[in-house]
């Protein structure tokens, strides 16, 4: 309030009482004569203060303030827009005042008119805003369009790396700081739209600082209209360079990662255990051969894609990984629309979002079908090689065993023969010698058969009528049949033509017949039933006898193996069946056996038909 008015007011304490300013009237002893209601409110005065000492009433005011009162009592006027004092309670206090002395006729100071405001709250707020502007590097600006007067805060200059007192001298000059080209054009266009249509803007652009540096800023502007005409633009300018550069770098890397994952057919996925929400990228859907539109959720899509046999295992493995066990690599199969199988490998990392108590799994998926298939093939080859190696070793040991047996006998018997003088004993030794050579011969013959049966003959197969083969073999051993009182029933299907090697078929059937007769039960004559049925491209032959049977629990798979030696015909079964198995497999067929001790045995043979 102007000092002259205050002087006039001083003459009228009642007017002072009603003034809206925070005003008090003091006498020369600094005692209250009057104060406005605003004063009372501002300083929370509840009792009557008239006649009381200024500082005893205003005890919260800093003691330093009294100097200004003393100064004015000497006839001076004093004005301050805001001064910081050390308050009585170790707090800063901001005061704004205007003090005038009022004088009597003889120019003697009769008292003071004080207008006083505690502006601490406003000052603190202002300081905070300033601090915030510095921390967030936000500056404010405004431009009046009529006279092109521009003002902006110091922070704008700091961001612009301009002298602190720099102010653009024209409207155009405001825009020359934006980088020429796309950036400057963008801001010009947005400012133009704001002026003509009233649309505010908020965008991120590059500007060139006073030192020629490129800096990313956020510029925000708003137009102000009077009578339908834009008179003022105002807004903020924020330095966002560090964040923007980091963001651009991240975007570039994310883009690069995306290109890389797309090119390498890697799917990326995420799963939260708490709510079972899974998220797949497009490649993950592609790998699972699923369309995201067909499913309510990704989890549902996964559940429908995974091979049912792998489902529980994968859940268990994932659970183990979530507890920190296992390698974090989970492999599973998915069934594609054409029913073919695809093998996928998921690499999983679990991490816990502690603040949310939520386990999150994140990982990549790759198609490993080719690897799996070649691994499977390799396994098969390895097993085949292993089996062949095993069978070769067995074969070698068997050959060694059998040849050694005969060699031993021959050498020992020959030794005895050379020393033996008794004719009778010599005759006996000669018979043994003959028996040994015959056995040796038979062994060598059998070895030859084994080697032959291992040969590949698939391209030498010819159509053969099984019925003729069976009858032919039966005739050859008719003498044995009669001797053992054996019988044979044939139940052959109308077409019994199979693809085979004649010599093999002869050998297989001969072996089956002689086995049945050799291992017939003691209390009943051998009875054999041969049945054939056609089944697609195959002919199934079952050969059943009523003999002693084989304890398959005891011998099981061994009966087709080379476990038993074959150097004496008494025990030809093991090797005979080994040869039979080799022969039938060489013709692309198979052989299996069922048996019950003391009831009988059934061999089931599968042949290929033309």
């Amino acid at each position: 309030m102007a000092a002259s008015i205050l002087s006039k007011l001083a003459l009228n304490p009642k007017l002072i009482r009603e003034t809206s300013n925070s005003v008090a009237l003091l006498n020369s002893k600094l005692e209250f004569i009057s104060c406005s209601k605003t004063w009372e409110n501002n300083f929370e005065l509840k009792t009557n203060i008239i006649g009381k000492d200024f500082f005893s009433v205003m005890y919260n005011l800093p003691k330093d303030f009294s100097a200004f009162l003393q100064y004015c009592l000497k006839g001076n006027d004093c004005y301050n827009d805001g001064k910081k004092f050390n308050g009585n309670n170790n707090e800063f206090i901001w005061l704004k005042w205007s003090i005038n002395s009022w004088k009597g006729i003889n120019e003697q100071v009769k008292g003071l008119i004080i207008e006083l405001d505690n502006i601490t709250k406003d000052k603190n707020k202002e300081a905070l805003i300033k601090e915030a502007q510095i921390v967030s590097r936000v500056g404010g600006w405004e431009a009046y369009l009529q006279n092109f007067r521009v003002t902006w805060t110091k922070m704008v200059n700091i961001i612009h790396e301009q002298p602190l007192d720099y102010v653009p001298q024209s409207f155009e000059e405001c825009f020359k700081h934006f980088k020429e080209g796309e950036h400057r054009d963008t801001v010009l266009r947005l400012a133009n739209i704001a002026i003509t249509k009233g649309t505010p803007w908020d965008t991120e652009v590059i500007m060139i600082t006073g030192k020629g540096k490129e800096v990313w800023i956020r510029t925000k502007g708003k137009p102000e209209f009077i009578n339908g005409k834009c008179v003022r633009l105002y807004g903020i300018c924020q330095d966002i360079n560090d964040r923007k550069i980091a963001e651009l770098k991240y975007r570039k890397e994310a883009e690069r990662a995306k290109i890389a994952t797309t090119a390498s057919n890697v799917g990326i996925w995420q799963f939260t255990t708490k709510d079972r929400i899974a998220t797949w990228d497009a490649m993950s859907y592609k790998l699972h051969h699923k369309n995201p539109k067909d499913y309510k959720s990704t989890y549902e899509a996964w559940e429908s894609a995974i091979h049912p046999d792998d489902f529980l295992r994968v859940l268990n493995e994932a659970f183990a990984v979530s507890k920190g066990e296992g390698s974090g690599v989970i492999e599973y199969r998915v069934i594609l629309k054409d029913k073919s199988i695809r093998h996928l490998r998921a690499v999983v990392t679990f991490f816990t979002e502690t603040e949310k108590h939520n386990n999150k799994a994140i990982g990549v998926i790759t198609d490993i079908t080719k690897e799996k298939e070649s691994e499977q093939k390799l396994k098969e080859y390895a097993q085949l090689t292993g089996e062949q190696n095993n069978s070769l070793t067995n074969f070698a040991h068997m050959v060694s065993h059998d040849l050694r047996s005969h060699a031993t006998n021959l050498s020992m018997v020959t030794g005895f023969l050379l020393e033996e003088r008794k004719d009778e004993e010599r005759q006996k030794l000669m018979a043994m010698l003959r028996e040994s050579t015959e056995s040796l011969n038979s062994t060598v013959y059998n070895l030859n058969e084994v080697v032959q049966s291992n040969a590949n003959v698939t391209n030498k197969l010819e159509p053969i009528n099984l019925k003729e083969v069976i009858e032919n073999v039966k005739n050859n051993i008719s003498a044995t049949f009669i001797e053992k009182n054996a019988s044979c029933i044939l139940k052959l299907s109308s077409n019994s033509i199979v693809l085979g090697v004649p010599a093999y078929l002869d050998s297989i059937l001969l072996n089956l017949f002689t086995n049945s007769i050799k291992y017939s039960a003691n209390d009943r004559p051998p009875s054999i039933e041969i049945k054939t049925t056609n089944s697609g491209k195959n002919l199934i032959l079952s050969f059943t006898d009523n003999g002693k049977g084989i304890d398959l629990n005891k011998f099981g798979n061994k009966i087709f193996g080379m476990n038993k030696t074959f150097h004496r015909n008494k025990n030809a079964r093991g090797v005979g069946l080994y040869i039979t198995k080799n022969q039938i497999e060489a013709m692309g067929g198979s052989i299996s056996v069922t048996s019950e001790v003391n009831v009988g045995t059934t061999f089931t043979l599968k042949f290929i038909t033309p």
Partner: protein
Amino acid sequence: MKKINSVCIIDDDSIYVYIVKRLMDECNFCNSIIEFENGKEGIEGIINLNATKNLPNIIFLDLSMPIMSGWEFLDSFAKATISNKEDIKIIVMSSSINPNEIEMIKAYPMVTDYIVKPITPSDLEKIASY
């Protein structure tokens, strides 16, 4: 050489059995020899001999035999009730030089020795000293 009272040979190769018997005779190895053609006859025979208290001191056992092999004989022998079983020495004789098989046979605690056929007079001498 200490003369053994009675031995038992279990082997299906009659020529080899003749050879062993002839060697034993020449070496004056034992007083009596019992023969069985396979493991089954062997174990049944041993059980009978146990009943009449005529158990052999040594059993010479072949491995590869029809009906019941040497392996199965050893299992049956282990299960059978035979008095003073541990006094009977079992010598396995085979033409097999398969190291796996030799290792397996040596794992049987009741087998005293393994001899690769043919048996020699020095083998017999060694066996007599066990």
